[in-house]
Structure formats: C-alpha cells, structure tokens
C-alpha cells in the first residue's frame, strides 16, 4: 500500500491467491467470557489470530486506481482532485472548485481499498486515518453505523436540516444552497449553529464564519449603545408617569394597605366589628329549594323585601314536571368517574365536624387532617424504614394520587420545546444521517426526502427523553431510527406514538 512499494509479478500472484474472502465469526458476549477451560482458551487464541491476520493482511491495488486525497484537519474534511469509480454519484460535495469528502466517506473508501489519503505530504495508514478522522464531532459509533448501512447497500448522507416552511413556500430550496445557508444563519443563535451546522453544512468554510462573527460583534456593540440611550430616555419618561389605564372601585392598588381602600361611603367604620358573622336560622328565611319535594308552593314575599315595581303573585312550582323535562334534555351521565377507594368511606365518615362557624370549622378541619396523618389505621406502615408512597390523606382526587405516585408525568410538548431550545439537549442527541434506499437515479444535488433518518447512541448511554425524541421527529414524518451500538453489534430501534386506553379520569 505504501507509495513506491512496487511488487514484482510473482509476489503479486502470491498476494492474490492468499486472499480469503470469508469473514471470520464475530462471536458474542458468551464466547469471550473466560471459563478457564483449555478448549475455550484455544478457541479464543485461534479467533484472535484470524482477526489479527485479517487486519494485518496487505492489500494491493494498482496505484493508478486509487483516488488520492488530502486530509484537512481544520475543516475535518478530505480534499481531492480527481474522482474515479462510482462513489462520486452519492458521496462528497463540491465547494466552488474543490471537491470534498467527509471523513466517514474517505475512511470507508480507504477500507474498501479505493482511496489513499495523505496528511502532511505522507500517506495515512488505515489505523492512522482512524486516529485522525475520528474526533468529538465525528464519533466512532457514527462511523460504525455509516459502514454498517453502506455495506448493506443504503445510500447514506449526513443529515441536512429541514428547509423552513417559508423557504419551501418561496421555493428557495430549489435555489442554490449557499444562499439558503446564509439566510439561516441570521435566524439561528450563533452558538447553536456552530455545534450543529458544522457537521452538516456542505459549503460553509471557516473564513466565511469568522467574517460573520465579526459583523455580529459589530451589531452587538451598536445595539448596546442604543440600549443605553434608551435607558436614559426612560428615566426622563418615568418622572411624569401619568397613571391609570383603569381604576378599580375596590381600591386602586390592593397591594398597599387598607389605607388606599375606598372609604367614601363608609358610615360607621369604628363601630363595625371585624367580620362578625351570625349563625343564620335558615328555617325562618324560607329559601326556596326544589330538593326532595314534588310541589313547591311559593308565597308572595313581604313587600318590604322587594325592589320597587315588582308585584308578584303567589304561585307554585311543579318540581316533578320540571325534573321530568330536564331529564329528557340532559342525558344522565353514563360514567361517574369518581374513584372510590376502600378507605374512602372511612375518610368521609371521619370528617364529620361539629362547628358553629367557618373559623371554628377550618380550625377543626386542619386538626383532623393533622390527626389523620399521625394516627391513621395503617400507621404501623410508617414505622419502618420503608414507607408507602401514599398516605390515606392523599386520597382526595385521582390526579393527586397519580401525582404522588409519579407514574404519569405531564409533558407539555409545546412548552418544553421552547424552554429547552437553547439547551445543550439539542446538541447531545442529534440526527446523524439521512438514509436513502439504493436507487440508480439518486442525485447528490437533489436527494429529495430521505427514506429514514438515523440517530446514533451507544448501549451504555441513557435512553433518550421524551423531549429529545419529540425534537428528533421532524415535521415531514420521515421515520427516525435510533441505532444502538453494543460491542460492535448494531441494532435499530424506533419509537411510535400510541394512546393508552384511559380507564381513570384525572379529576
């Protein structure tokens, strides 16, 4: 493989004949778990030997058949001049006059013995290339997934952010991509963009970026100036702050004490006692109520209670008739969704409070609740170290119980998205690749909608949160797969929406 290492005819023939195309068995976890037996040690050593041999195998290729590229460590891209073979139809991109390959593409081509990449004027070995190409912005796992998909024949491109609705509507997507990039830059936060678009942008180069940053700084400083100016204006404005959009008759600003309260029509404030209440004798008062009776006779109220110009006659109200009528119009509620718990009755029966007024009542109620917490019939459950999550007093509503149990966490998708958009969340899990089915008509410049999208995670990583999943599902409903790598094994998972049947209502 090294430059200048030219093989003689006989050596070449020898090389050619030894090539064994079979792939050695990979083996799973159990195969490597040493059990101390002689058989296994032997088998493992054979296994490692075959692998080592395979990796050490010299690969020969006609020098002229190799594509030669140059590694650019700043941009983390491989530049090359002359393309050969079919790969160019679905790999790499052009920036002005130069042709570029992403590191995964270059590495894949190197492994397939189609390319030679030089760095500092020296060609890289595959091992060196792994060292050089794989970094924080492009992880080994991503390369593994890339290879896995490529070997199965899929066309894999780096993930392209979706064009916005606006861009679609003015058909900007059909236009040169360069202009699209610039437009996006203005909308996005600069910090976010550095992380994200670095990976996926095609033609953005360091130079343009720095120019952009400079202009940003300029803008910032000028807006700072404006702000200070505005503030000084504001101070002047505040002096003659004329009041009131709407005044309130109950006191302009309730925050300040009762001093501010409107006292215009108070006649005998001093004699008035603080919230003195009376225990009304409702049996004297004759409040009409249609409960538990068939006919309600309504007397003519005493004139002194009536406003002027109201002269009623006696009458009666046919409750039975009324109930019959309303029953027809309003269907009786089919399901009464109040959950009844076994101790529900017990709780209810205990809360009989004898009090003569609200103050008394509230005090006694709080005492009872306190008591319940201390002496519940199941109080021995709270004596040990491990205690139940729910207390009998928590059983008030279904929502309260679920809240205490923390089974169902409410996620407000809209809210959370706006909250976290500036977070690192977006950067840590991102869609790495757009995957297309093998297709002869595939065009790099206009790839169309991908058939799949792939996020890459390791098996030791935390499973993605609901919010990140939601963020990864883009508007166009292309299925997103989560590629999980476990010791080199690749598995794809995807999430699907479904609604659970609701048996309890959160009252």
């Amino acid at each position, binding site marked *: 493989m090294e430059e200048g290492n030219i093989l003689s005819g006989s050596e070449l023939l020898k090389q050619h004949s030894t090539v064994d195309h079979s792939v050695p068995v990979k083996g799973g976890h159990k195969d490597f778990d040493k059990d101390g037996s002689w058989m296994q040690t032997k088998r493992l050593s054979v296994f490692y030997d075959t692998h080592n041999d395979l990796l050490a195998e010299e690969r020969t290729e006609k020098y002229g058949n190799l594509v030669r590229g140059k590694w650019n460590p700043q941009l983390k891209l491989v530049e090359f001049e002359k393309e050969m073979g079919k790969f160019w139809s679905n790999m790499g991109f052009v920036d002005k006059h130069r042709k570029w390959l992403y590191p995964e593409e270059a590495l894949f081509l190197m492994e397939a013995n189609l390319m030679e990449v030089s760095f500092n004027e020296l060609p890289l070995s595959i091992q060196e290339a792994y060292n050089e190409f794989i970094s924080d912005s492009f992880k080994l796992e991503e390369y593994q997934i890339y290879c896995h998909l490529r070997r199965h024949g899929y066309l894999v491109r780096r993930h392209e952010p979706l064009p916005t609705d606006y861009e679609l509507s003015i058909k900007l997507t059909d236009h040169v991509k360069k202009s699209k990039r610039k437009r996006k830059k203005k909308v996005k936060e600069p910090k976010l963009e550095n992380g994200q678009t670095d990976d996926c942008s095609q033609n953005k180069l360091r130079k343009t970026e720095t120019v952009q940053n400079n202009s940003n700084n300029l803008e910032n400083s000028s*807006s700072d100036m404006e702000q200070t100016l505005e503030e000084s204006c504001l101070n002047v404005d505040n002096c003659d702050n*004329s009041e009131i959009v709407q005044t309130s008759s109950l006191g302009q600003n309730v925050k300040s004490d009762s001093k501010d309260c409107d006292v215009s029509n108070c006649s005998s404030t001093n004699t008035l006692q603080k919230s003195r209440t009376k225990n009304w004798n409702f049996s004297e008062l004759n409040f009409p109520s249609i409960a538990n009776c068939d006919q309600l006779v309504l007397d003519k109220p005493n004139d002194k209670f009536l406003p002027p110009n109201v002269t009623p006659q006696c009458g009666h109200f046919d409750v039975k008739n009324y109930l019959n009528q309303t029953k027809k119009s309003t269907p009786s509620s089919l399901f009464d969704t109040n959950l009844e718990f076994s101790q529900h009755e017990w709780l209810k029966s205990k809360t009989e409070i004898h009090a003569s007024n609200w103050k008394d009542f509230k005090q006694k109620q709080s005492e009872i609740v306190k008591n319940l917490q201390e002496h519940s019939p199941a109080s021995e459950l709270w004596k040990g170290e491990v205690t139940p999550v729910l207390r009998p007093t928590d059983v*008030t509503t279904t929502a309260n119980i679920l809240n205490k149990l923390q089974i169902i966490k409410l996620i407000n998708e809209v809210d959370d998205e706006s909250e976290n958009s500036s977070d690192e969340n977006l950067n840590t899990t991102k869609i790495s690749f757009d995957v297309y089915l093998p297709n002869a008509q595939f065009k790099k410049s206009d790839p169309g909608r991908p058939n799949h999208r792939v996020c890459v995670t390791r098996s030791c990583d935390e499973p993605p949160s609901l919010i990140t999943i939601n963020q990864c599902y883009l508007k166009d409903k292309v299925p997103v797969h989560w590629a999980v790598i476990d010791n080199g094994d690749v598995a794809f998972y995807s999430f699907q929406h479904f609604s659970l049947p609701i048996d309890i209502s959160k009252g």
Partner: protein
Amino acid sequence: MAEEVTGEGTKFDLKPNDELRFEVETKQTVVMEMTHGKGEVFGAELAKNKKYKFNSGAKVAVYTWHGCQIKISFPNLVGTTEVAYISKETPMLMYLNTHAALEQMRLKADEENMRGPRAIIVGPTDVGKSTLCRILCNYAARLGRAPIFADIDVGQGQTDIPGTIGALSVERPSDVEEDYSQLSPLSFHFGHKTPQTNTALYELLIQRLAEVINMRSEKSKRTNVSGVIINTCGWIRGAGYELIKNTAGAFEVDLVMVIDQERLFNELKRDLPHFVHVVLLPKSGGVVERSQSSRGEARDAKIREYFYGIDNSLYPHNFEVKFTDVKIFKIGAPVLPESCLPLGMKAEDNKTKQVPVMPSMSLLHHVFSVSAANSPEDNVVETNVLGYVVITAIDMEKQCFTVLAPSPRPLPKNILLMMDLQFMDIK
C-alpha cells in the same frame, strides 16, 4: 300575548309573569323598545320608550311582573323574528323568593350590625349561573344595597376580560345593554381559560380575592351588610368539586345555591359544614347551551369590547414600547419532579412563581395584564391588574413592540403578565 307585525318591527304583548326571549344572530342588531307597562331585563328595569340596541350574540330575556308591550325591530335586516318567543314558565318567582330571603338576612344584619349574606352559585355549564347572579345583584341594588359581585369564572367572566378573576361593587342595577362593563372592577391576573390549567394559582387568587373583599367589607357598612354574591365556573367534578368546597371556605359563605344538579346538591349538603345552607334551584327554560366555538367567540368579543367598547364607541391607542421599558412575566413555571427541587420546596410552589419571559415573536397577539405592582420584587402574583394590552406587532431589530392599549402612552406600570389568550385586532 299577541304578536303583531307592523312596518317598523314586531310588537309583543306580554301578560304578567311572561318572559320574552330572543337571541341576536351574528352580524345583526336588534332594537328593542318598551311601549307600555313595566318590564325588566335580568332584574334591571327597562325605561319606557327608550330604544335599546343589542349586538350579535346577545341573549335577552324581558320579564314582566305587570304586563307590557315590547317592540322589536331589525334595522339591518327585514323581519326574521322566529328567534323571539314568549314563555310562561320561568323560575323567576323562585328567584324572587330567593332574593326576598337574602334581603331578610340583610335587614337582620343591618339591625344587629353584622356581616350580610354571602352566597355562592354553583352548577354545571350553561344553566344560567351568571344570569341568576345578575338578577340577585340587580334586585339588591334596586333596594339601595351595594352587594359585591365576585366572579371567579375565568372562562366567561362578566366583570372583566376572560383569564382574570375579579369583583365589583354593584351600587346600581346593571345597564340593560352593557351589563356591568361601565363599572371598573378589581381584577387579578390568572392567564388561562380554565382553572384546570393551574389550580394552585387559582386557589391562591381566590384566597386573595376573599381577603380583599373582607378588607372592603370592614371599611364600609353598606357593603358589609349587602353581602357577596359569587359566580363560579361550570367545573363541578373531581378537583373542580374540591375547588368549590375550598372557595366556599375561602369566602366563608352562608349559602350555596346549586342550579339544576341534584347530585352536586347532595354532595355539597353532605360535605359542607351544617351551618352552611344549601339550596337547589331550577334552571330557566330560556338557557341556551353554548358550543365550544361560541364560547371562544364570546371570549374574543369580550376582549374586543374591552378595547373598542360596545358598538365601537371607544378608540384605543396604538403605540410602541421598547423591550427595555417593560418586564414581562408569566405565572407558573413548568412542573419539575420533586427530586430536582431544592430541599423543602414543593412542586406546587412553582405553579405560582413568576417566570420572566424574553421578548420574542411568540408574544405576538397575546393579551397582557398590566400589573399594579411597582417592581418584580413585590408580590406580583397577588397584585391586582390595572388594565390590559395586546401586542400587535414586534420588531426584533428595533427592539420594540407595538401595543394596543386603552389609554395613551406611556404604560402606567412596567410589569406585564402574559396570558394564554390571544386577540387578533382585525374586524
């Protein structure tokens, strides 16, 4: 009872205890005039030979104790009167008896220098809770009382725009055309259309409203004796039922009126302390069930009315406000699991926190309350609001909003609280 169609409109002759009901359809106006006798609309008396104008969406019921003649005409359209009809079966006598009993309590309270009756009206949606409140307040006001009308129905509030809870002191009967809109209420910012969205905040505000009403009652004997009438929203199940009980406790009510829901009546009778009197009242046959969309329309109309007045009689101002001039908050942070919170803090605490909101395009068309608080360190959540503005345009480059406000610039205070509600200033 007779109908008579003349060139000018339709005449209705009402006998004593009849009720004429009509609904104004969209984009129509109805002009009503009482030519003979005596009549009232939800307890507010009609003046003879005065033309009352009702705009689209209005639902009107004219009741008469004496008999009267009403003339209805449609200035925009020629004669579609099928929506107007006369009903003989009304629960008005029952409501009047309820008022009489309340008045008895007021007289007694006056004599013995005590607190007047406090009544809460509960029931499912669309049974006429607000109407009953209005009737009871108006009758009381006609007798020279000044009851406080507390409206905690955040969805379809009568005292102020939706998304707030508030109270006003009813010193004279409501205007036939304009309801209570000419009085300036005390309002607290809630920000959502339903109490479900943030029950913790809702309960806190109710507690606060009750405190303020107590404060007012202590200052004025007339108010104290006249009592409080509380209107609730139609959420009566599960946590909504708990809310009703808590509200009754917060206001320390003497009386609960349940409209048209026997089950609720029985539950409240069982669960409320025995010194609270619970009565069950029938609903009126004239109650119209509103669809979800018509509720939305009603909310929108209420906000429009705030800025433009009924019949576009007001002229609101549009002006620019710099981002730096105002501080925007919303109440209630997203709920965090308890493991993420500092020690001793409950997840519920977050729901009543004020969270700063950065100016962005997402604020467009939202309604904002102008808080009476002077600085964010004051208890903004529990401070009343002065008024409302809508952000009608945002210029990110110039760093300023354009706001629609009822008064000219500048804003009276610089703390804005964001609502879920949105209002598009087009019509």
